[in-house]
């Protein structure tokens, strides 16, 4: 296990290097002179020269790349061209907002998806099964930005049940220490604010979680169907265990590995989808941070934002890989 963990960590190195090469290249692959593109047509030659100086664009490529990597390793993600702030500090509240949203969406996707999948498998070919699987099929095909817009229209604008924009009531801002509003509000003892923040999470969280939920439901169903046919399941049933015990303790435990794989892969969908969801719901997360940077041609922010999201994705998949052997001791590396 330890050897595997170490090997898996070592395998990360080329991936991380490759990722940094790609994000590094973003600015260099801009057609034409990057500084000119960033500053626009009317920029003076002095302004262009000074920006080139600031971004170090005059150095040879490998020196630039060396500086870039050295910076990242020291936690320096560069300076935003628009706000002139350090990206590594600026990014933290956005990052926390995205993590909060993603975790909420993932919890929603897993709870609903796994249970729908289990019931579908247990009552195969029932009305529930058909309905759930049709919903899952439609869910996979749904553009999440459209689902988000529809939810906003129905639940926020027409029914007025839930807030459609932002993370909290703008007139009653949350005092932040960790940038996770659900935690900060508890630290501050403001449970009314906690409830508001929670309500703000619901619509974007469900919009973001729908595709993973659908995929998890389908995976759980097919994985459970396979397990339910096994002899040991018949034994458990014959023993007279309660249905609940049979399904959840003995059945799902054995069906969990493929489900876990899907969950790991879906975090990528979630992190990518966060960008769309955050745009629609004005959620101040890292996706929106990058999106706004694209509009402002703030390339250092684009580079670092993308690098941070991709690194998160890679680390999550690492954790999932390592979890396999913990959950299923039969898997040996």
């Amino acid at each position, binding site marked *: 296990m330890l050897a595997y963990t170490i090997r898996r960590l070592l395998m990360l190195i*080329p*991936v991380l290097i*490759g*990722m940094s*090469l*790609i*994000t590094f*290249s*973003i600015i260099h*692959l*801009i*057609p034409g002179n990057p500084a000119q593109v960033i500053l626009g047509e009317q920029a003076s030659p002095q302004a262009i020269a000074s920006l080139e100086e600031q971004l170090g664009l005059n150095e040879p490529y490998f020196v630039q790349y060396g500086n870039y990597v050295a910076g990242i390793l020291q936690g320096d993600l560069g300076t935003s061209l628009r706000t002139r702030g350090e990206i590594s500090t600026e990014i933290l509240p956005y990052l926390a907002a995205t993590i909060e949203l993603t975790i909420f969406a993932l919890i929603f996707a897993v709870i609903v998806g796994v249970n729908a999948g289990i019931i579908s498998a247990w009552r195969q070919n029932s009305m529930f099964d058909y309905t759930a699987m049709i919903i899952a*099929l*439609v869910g*996979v*095909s*749904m*553009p999440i*930005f*459209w689902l988000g*817009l*529809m939810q*906003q*229209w129905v639940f926020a*604008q*027409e029914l007025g049940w839930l807030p459609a924009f932002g993370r909290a009531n703008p007139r009653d801002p949350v005092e932040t220490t960790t940038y996770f509003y659900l935690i900060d509000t508890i630290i501050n003892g403001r449970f009314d604010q906690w409830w508001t923040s929670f309500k703000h999470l619901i619509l974007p969280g469900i919009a973001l979680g729908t595709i993973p939920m659908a995929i998890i439901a*389908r995976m759980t*169903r*097919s994985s459970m*169907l*396979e397990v339910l046919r096994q002899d040991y399941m018949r034994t458990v049933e014959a023993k007279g265990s309660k249905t609940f015990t049979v399904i959840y303790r003995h059945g799902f435990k054995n069906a969990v590995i493929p489900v876990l794989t899907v969950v790991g892969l879906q975090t*990528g*969908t979630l*992190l*990518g*989808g966060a*960008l*769309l969801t955050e*745009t*629609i719901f004005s959620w101040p997360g890292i996706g929106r941070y*990058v*999106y706004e940077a*694209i*509009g402002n041609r703030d*390339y250092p922010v*684009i580079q670092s934002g*993308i690098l941070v*999201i*991709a690194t998160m*994705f*890679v680390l999550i998949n690492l954790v999932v890989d390592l979890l396999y052997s913990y959950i299923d001791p039969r898997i040996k590396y």
Partner: protein
Amino acid sequence: METVKKQETKQPMQGPEKPQKKVESISPWKEAYWQLRKNKLAIVGLCIVLFFILIAALAPFITTHTVSGMNAADRLTGPSSDYWFGTDYSGRDIFTRIVYGAQISLIVGFFAVTGAMFFGSLLGIVAGYYGRWVDMLISRVFDIMLAFPSILLAIAIVAMLGPSLQNALIAIAIINIPIFGRLVRSKVISIRQEEYILAAKAQGMKSSRILIHHVLPNSTAPIIVQATLGFGVAILEAAALGFLGLGAQAPTPEWGRMLSDSRQYIQSAPWTVLFPGLSIMLVVLGFNMIGDGLRDALDPKMKS
């Protein structure tokens, strides 16, 4: 000659309904076709997709308005006999725009998938067949590309190339290359061990010939399944980029773009948002249903 041999070894036994004549047997493709015909969902999916192809092809004949014909007097009017799906904020007929949007989505999907399939298969075959450092290099590149959430990589590519429909298409093709590449690579590696490849090698066949005549035909099934599912994904990704303003630009009737242009009118004129979104969902659903059916038909092992 080897082809015949290969066909026989790969051939699953036929069902009992027909007594076997000589050594002849139904090709796996024909069998898959029969399987597929029995799958109702796949047939429904096929009908949906054919429907969209049909309206896209017949666009000039079934629309009564022009794509960008603005009519300020009729802006944001609801669905009626004149405007089936209503009009948008500049009085353009939404039905017409959706029909022409179908052309765009299908073309983008087609070229993005074809491009990804071509380059992905090529790299996958090379990696899987030659192995060693070539495989190492190509596989690591795939790993790195897959380390990015796909839409994010597409955004990064568009951020470099500049926002346009063409660049969105290129970006979508690129992000899908490793998906095809990995699939083909793993298939090639398993095929490489087969005896008929060894036989072909022993006969002194050139690598390129073996690749084209033996390895590629035997990897087509998973490629076709992935291409069908990928078609839907590519359409979704193109719409997402259009929605973010990174794909098709303003007057183009691209569905994602139409959504983002109309989103501020959702309360007063919900049809402006409803119909483009429904179209995206339906066409993607169609491709997903066919893809699922094809997977069950072509790859019995993956059947759930």
